[in-house]
C-alpha cells in the first residue's frame, strides 16, 4: 500500500488495512447473501409448515446465524479491530440481559 496520500488519518487506516489484507471478494459477499437468503426462506417456511415445539428454538437459531453473518462479514467485524466488536457486543449483551430481566419481572415468559 504505497500511496502518496499524506493524511495522518489515511496512513493510519492503510497501515491497518495491511494487517487485515484478506478483505473478502465480491464473490464471497454474494455467496454470503445467498446463504442469508436461503435462511430467510427457511424462516418463512416455518410459517407454512408446522414443526411443533421446535419452532421457536429453530427461529432463534436462524436469527442468530443471520445476525452473525451480517455483523461479521458485511460489517467487517471478522477482519476489523477487536475494539469495535467489543463495543457492539457490550451493547448487545447489556441490552439483552437488562431487558430480559425486565421482561421476567413483568412476568412476560409465563403470561406471554
Amino acid at each position: 500500500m504505497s500511496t502518496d496520500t499524506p493524511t495522518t488519518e489515511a496512513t493510519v487506516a492503510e497501515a491497518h488495512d495491511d494487517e487485515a489484507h484478506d478483505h473478502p471478494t465480491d464473490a464471497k459477499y454474494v455467496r454470503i447473501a445467498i446463504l442469508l437468503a436461503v435462511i430467510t426462506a427457511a424462516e418463512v417456511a416455518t410459517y407454512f409448515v408446522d414443526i411443533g415445539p421446535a419452532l421457536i428454538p429453530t427461529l432463534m437459531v436462524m436469527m442468530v446465524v443471520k445476525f452473525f453473518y451480517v455483523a461479521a462479514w458485511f460489517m467487517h467485524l471478522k477482519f476489523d479491530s477487536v475494539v469495535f466488536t467489543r463495543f457492539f457486543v457490550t451493547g448487545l449483551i447489556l441490552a439483552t440481559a437488562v431487558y430480559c430481566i425486565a421482561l421476567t419481572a413483568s412476568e412476560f415468559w409465563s403470561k406471554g
Partner: protein
Amino acid sequence: MSEQTAELTVGGDAAQPLGVYSRPKGGGGWRDWITTVDHKKIGILYGGAALLFFFVGGFEALLIRLQLATPNGTVVGADLYNQIYTMHGVTMVFLVIMPMAAAFANYLLPLQIGARDVAFPRLNALSFWVFLAGGLFLNCAWLFGDAPDGGWFAYSPNTGVSFSPGHGMDFYAIGLQIAGIGSLISAMNLIVTVLNMRAPGMTLFKMPVFSWMILVVQFLLLFAVPVITVALFLLLFDRNFGSNFFNPEMGGDPLLWQHLFWIFGHPEVYILILPSFGIVSEVIPTFARKPIFGYEFMVFSGIAIGFMGWGVWAHHMFVSGIGPISVGAFTLSTMFIAVPTGVKILNWLATMWGGKIRLNAAMLFATGVVSMFTIGGLSGVTHSLSPADTQQTDTYYIVAHFHYVIFGGALLGFFAGFYFWWPKVFGHKLGETLGKWNFWTMIVGFNVTFGPMHILGLNGMSRRIDTYSPGFGFELWNMVATIGVFIIALGVLFFVLNVILSARRARGLPPEPPDPWDARSLEWFTPNPTPVHNFDEDIEVSSLDEFWHRKWTTDENGKVVRKATAAEVCQAGDAENVHLPSPSYWPIVMSAGMPLIGFGLMYNLWLCVPGAALVLMAIYAWVFEPPDDPDGPFGHGHDDHDDHGDAEAGDESASDEGAPQEEAASVE
C-alpha cells in the same frame, strides 16, 4: 502536510457553494465563547451554566423548606409546591450535577491524558449548547406558569393527560430529551478521546483515577441515555398522540415506565457520584502526599460499580408489586453493590493514613465527601433490605438518604474540585480563609438540614406532601431542617464571595506559579492558567503520577527527595504556531433549533418547521464548512506535523455527519 489541508478544503473553498461559510475568526469577547470548540472554554461554559442552574434549584429548595417549616404552611399552594419540588429535583440532577461533572470532565480529561483537545471538538461544543438548550427549555416552563409537577421520576399514570392536563410534563419529556442528546454526544466523544488521544506511553492503567471514573461515567451515559430516551418518547407519545403505553384505562402498564425509568435511573446515580469519586481520588493523594492506595482496586471497583449498577434498578420498585422473586433477587444484588463502594472508602482512608495531611479547603471538602457519603451509603444499605425499605419508601428517610449521597457525595466533591483546580483554570487560588468558612457552614448546614430527615422519615412523614398537620411530632425537626438550609445558603454565599474577592485580589498580579499544590498528574505540566494549546509538546509518560515522579525520587535510604523543582519540570506554555481546531458557528445554531421543535410539539406543529430547518441547515453547513481558516488566528503553522492537532482537524472534517444527523433526527 499542507497539501493535505489544501486537498481537504477543495470541496468547500474552491467553489464556495451555497451555505458554505468560512470558519469564524474569533473577534474577542462573547463571540469567542459562542463559537469556541476549545475543550477548556467549553468546560468553563458547562461550569458557569451549572452554577446558574444551581442557584435556581437552590432557590426552589429554600421555598420547599419555607413551606414545610411549620405545620399548615401557606408560603405556596399545593399545585405550585408540586411544581417546585419536581423542578428542584430535575434541575439539581440533570442541570447541575451532570453538567458540573461535564465541566470537570471537559476541562481536565484531555489535560490529564496529555491531549491537545477532545477527539471531536465541534461535537463537544454541540454537546454543551444542546444541554443548555434543554435546560433553558425546561425552565421556560416557569414562564408559561406550567412547570412539570410529577416528581423527578415522573411516575405514570400521574403524568398522563388525565392527571396532568397542562403542558408541564411535556416540558419535562422534551427538555430532558434535548439534554439527553447532549449527554449522549458528549459520552461518545469522550470515549473516543480516551481511547485514541492519549499521550505517548499513557496506557489506560497509567491514567489518573479521575480520568478513569469519567470514562466509566461516559460508558454509563452511553448505555443509559438511550433507555430514558425510549421512556421519554413513550411518555411524549402517550400525552400528545394518544398512544396507550402507560394508560391503565386502555390496558397500558404504568410499571413499564418504572422499569424503563429506573433501568436508566440507577446507572444515573453512579453517573452523578463517580465524577466526584474521581475528584476526591485526585485531591486526597495530593494533600496527603501519598500515592493513591490500591490504584488498581480503585479503578476496578469503579468498573465493577459501572457493571453492577445495571442489575439493581428494581430496588426502587420494591413496593410496586413486582413479585417476591424479583424483590428477593434485587435485594441481593443491591446488597452486593455496596462492596465496591466500600472498597473506595477504605482506599481513601488508607491513602490518608500516615500521610502528611495538609488540611486546606480542597482537602476539607474531600474528607467531607468521604464521611458524608459513607453515611448516605449506609442508609442506602438499609433500604436494600426490602422489608425495611417497605417501611421507608416515599418517606423523608429516602429524601435524607439521597441528599447525603448527592449533596454530601457529588456536590461536596465538586467544591473540593473547585478549590483544587481553580488556579489551573483561572490562574489564581480561591481564598483559604473564606474557603474554610465555606466548608464549615456547608457541612454544618447540610447535616442540620438532612440529618433530621432520617428521623422525620422513620416517624412516618411522607415525601412530596405540601404540608402537614400539627400533632404528629414533625414540627421540631422540620423547623430544624429549615434553619439548616439557610446555613447552607450562607455557605454558598461564602463561596460566591470567595470567587469575587479572590478574582479582585488577583487582578494585576502575575498568575499563580506552576504547580501550587505539589500535584501529581499531567494537567500540572502546563502553566496557570492553561494556555490555549495545552501542552507545548507531547509528554512521554512512563508511570502513574508522571508529574510527581519527575519532581521527586527516593534516595538510597528510601527517603523521598526532590530531584527537580516544579519550575524546571513544567512547560513554559509559549509554543507558537500550534495548529488548533477552528471555531464554528454551527453547534450553537443547531442547538437553537431543538427547543423550537419542542415548542412546536406542544403548541403548534408549524413551529417545528423553522426548528427542523435550523437544525438541518446547521448540519449541512457543519458538514461542508472548511476544516480550517488559513488566515485566522488558529491557522496552520509550519511545524505541526508532530502534534495531535492535525489528526483532529483531519478526522473531524473527513466526515462525522453520521452522528449529528442521527441526533437531529431523534428529536424530530
